[in-house]
């Protein structure tokens, strides 16, 4: 954690606000995330944590404030959005694999069409990634033929195939059976150890304790507490955090 403080900031947000109609989803979120940092975002449902990370790659549009990813400011300029999206990988709660394509096609699609790689290069890289997430034998199957845990690992491989600098995880284990959660978390741990910058929205407190550098606690669209995991779990600063922790631990 000490070593990280020397790195430069890769994601900077300043006073980000967002409304869905009358409902304010984000209320002035400001944070600095350094390279190679692993951030866990937690909080009760409806607290704006998913909305926040979806703003980082413009799946949702923020209405006020600035988001700067790797020196590029996120505005309505489509070029900036494309540039940021190709550097930020995202893993969804419901996997969102493409059901009409095989596993290997799912992974190679973006490298071939967006990164303009040749098919052979993309396939070699995809095979390598499938080995990394532990399912090289499933390459020719369709997503519908895999278990939830395997599908989520394919989704991670698909995001990694674009060689992103940052990975966003939007509740990656919430739709999984308890037995499958571990296999996905193992892949994420390995990824964190390899030095990837990660923002993880999750309720897996074990993962937070073990892997992450900082925990951010959201409530009602506000960033209530930002702390290192040790202090966060043992002596949290705010009362709201204490209440939350007492309910889930």
């Amino acid at each position: 954690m000490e070593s990280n403080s020397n790195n430069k900031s890769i994601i900077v947000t300043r006073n980000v606000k967002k409304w869905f109609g009358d409902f304010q989803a984000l209320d002035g979120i400001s944070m600095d995330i350094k390279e190679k940092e692993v951030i866990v975002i937690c909080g009760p449902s409806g607290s704006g944590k998913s909305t926040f990370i979806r703003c980082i790659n413009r799946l949702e549009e923020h209405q006020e404030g600035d988001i700067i990813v790797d020196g590029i400011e996120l505005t309505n300029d489509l070029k900036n959005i494309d540039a940021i999206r190709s550097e930020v990988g995202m893993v969804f709660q419901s996997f969102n694999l493409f059901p009409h394509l095989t596993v290997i096609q799912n992974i190679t699609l973006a490298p071939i069409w967006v990164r303009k790689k040749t098919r052979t290069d993309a396939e070699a890289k995809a095979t390598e990634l499938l080995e990394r997430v532990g399912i090289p034998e499933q390459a020719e199957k369709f997503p519908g033929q895999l278990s939830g845990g395997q599908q989520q690992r394919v989704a991670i491989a698909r995001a990694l195939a674009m060689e992103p600098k940052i990975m966003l995880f939007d509740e990656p284990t919430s739709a999984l059976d308890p037995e499958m959660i571990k296999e996905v978390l193992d892949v994420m741990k390995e990824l964190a150890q390899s030095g990837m910058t990660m923002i993880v929205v999750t309720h897996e407190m074990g993962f937070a304790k073990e892997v992450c550098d900082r925990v951010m606690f959201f409530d009602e669209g506000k960033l209530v507490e930002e702390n290192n995991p040790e202090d966060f779990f043992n002596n949290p600063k705010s009362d709201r955090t204490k209440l939350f922790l007492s309910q889930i631990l």
Partner: protein
Amino acid sequence: MRLIKNTQLRWVRDNLFSSMGSTILSLITGYMTIVAYRGTVGFILSPMRQWSAITYNMQLYMIFNYMEEESWRAWASVGVAFVLAGITLGYWNTGEKKSFNQIAGGLFKTFSTLSLLVLFSPSETEIMNNDGSRAMVEVISSNQRINFLIPIAVVALLSFLLSRYSITRVFNKTKVLLFYLGLPVALGWIIKIPTITFDAAGARIKPDLFLPVATTTTIPWTILYGALWASFFVGQFLQKKEIKSLKRTIPLSWLVLPLYLFSWLYKKPVIELNKVLMNDIPGFLIFSLIGFLIIRYITDEKFSKYRNYLATGFFLATAAILFLRIPFLIKVLTFSVVLLLLVAPSLANSKEGKRQLLIVWLVAIAVLTFLLRGSGSPTGIITPTGSFLGGFSLTWVLAIFGTYVSFPFGVLLALGRTSSLPLIRIICTGVIEIVRSVPYITWLFFASVMLTVFMPEGIEFNLIIRVLIVTAFFSGAYFAENIRGGLQSISKGQYEAANAIGMNPFQRIFLIILPQALRAVVPTLVGSVITAFKDSSLVAIIGLFDVLRIGSAVIPTQSNPVNFVGTQLDNILFIAIFYWIFCFTFSRRTMKIEKKLGLGER
């Protein structure tokens, strides 16, 4: 009950006679089926019928009054389609096998059913005499019945024994299919169709004289069948050679083929050489050069800055020259450049991609030049009624070509209607709703009477082409609504996933959304195609001669050289069977394709 060991008998017991109620229902429906069957056979074999009206007029049914000396064009079109079908079957032969026992089992099913049909067929039927009294006449004598029954039963028995006998030999499934297709061709050589002729007073004489029509088509069909086999082997050879480029060329050929064959049937262009030399060849060269430059430099950093300005410029140029007296071809080509500028950046991303796109561009502008020059020049094919096609060939052209044009059009309309750009959405919604709220027949009258007014100067289309244009709009709008249903069934997550991996809207639609949406609506699309096929018979109303009009109005009024007055029933039954065979085969085939496509779903 233990006595019933045979699985077929057990099936009968479990499904037809499982309870008191189902036994009664089975007996009633069985009785009704037999009555209906006997009635139909009696109708078909009755001496009142005059099936020679169909065999004699087969040419009328097939190509109507297309000129006799040009009828080789129709044969050649079918031939080209056969050759391409053969190559496709050979190249995409999956090597699926059918065992000897399976084939014998299939034969047993067919022939045991046939023997039941012969057994239950009626021996006499009712006819009406000239004075209105009714009488029974014999249609199948007991000798005839036995003569039919014995060979059929023998084949059924033999195939039953063979299906039980363990023979390990397997056959290629496609080859078996091709072999079965040969049976009707072989029948053409074996069976001569007995027809009835008439004396001067109109009375029937010589009940089994052979009219030539059935035999003259035997030779061309045999040649076509041979070509099918030959091209099948060529396709297999190409598959073994692993020529990968065919994987794209064959589907593309199927897309281009109807257009090509249609223009072949439609035109024997009288092309003026000086116009070709002065206009077409220079135009082709200039536009190939423009295309080459765009494809070569499109991915260049400096160039991509100006791409949007260039596309806008060309678009405005198209809009401007729309009102000038410039050849229609130039307008079309300028607009194609706009399309190329929009499409090229995402397709010409590698050297290979650039090469392929260039080939597509050259082929496209060559075809456009050829078609537009052809359609502008006078034709050498002149038919008495002005409509150059009729009968089955008209039905086929309307069905196939209508689908080919309206399907992509429907896809575009559906995408437009779900677009986030308000102007496009409003226009597409407007087109769909206007087209769907007016009956097809009204559109057909529009095609026959009004459409000429809206055409650019100097271009005058044949009635059939005008019908095709309104059909494209009409079935396009219905396709669009079906496809829109498919688009709505795609979850928001798929859009988000495509966005998150950095795809542009074009890639997102064509790689992720459309393939899934179309798969979801295959059953309804098949329904639309079948509807379009059957609706094509409505063109009779605006004066085209489709099968229905030939069968109900043309043939029953013939009295010279042979008297066919009053044969409506025979003709209409034949037409109904024709429609049924094609619609049934089509829906059966696509059910199999649906199953294959379903593999990726879940």
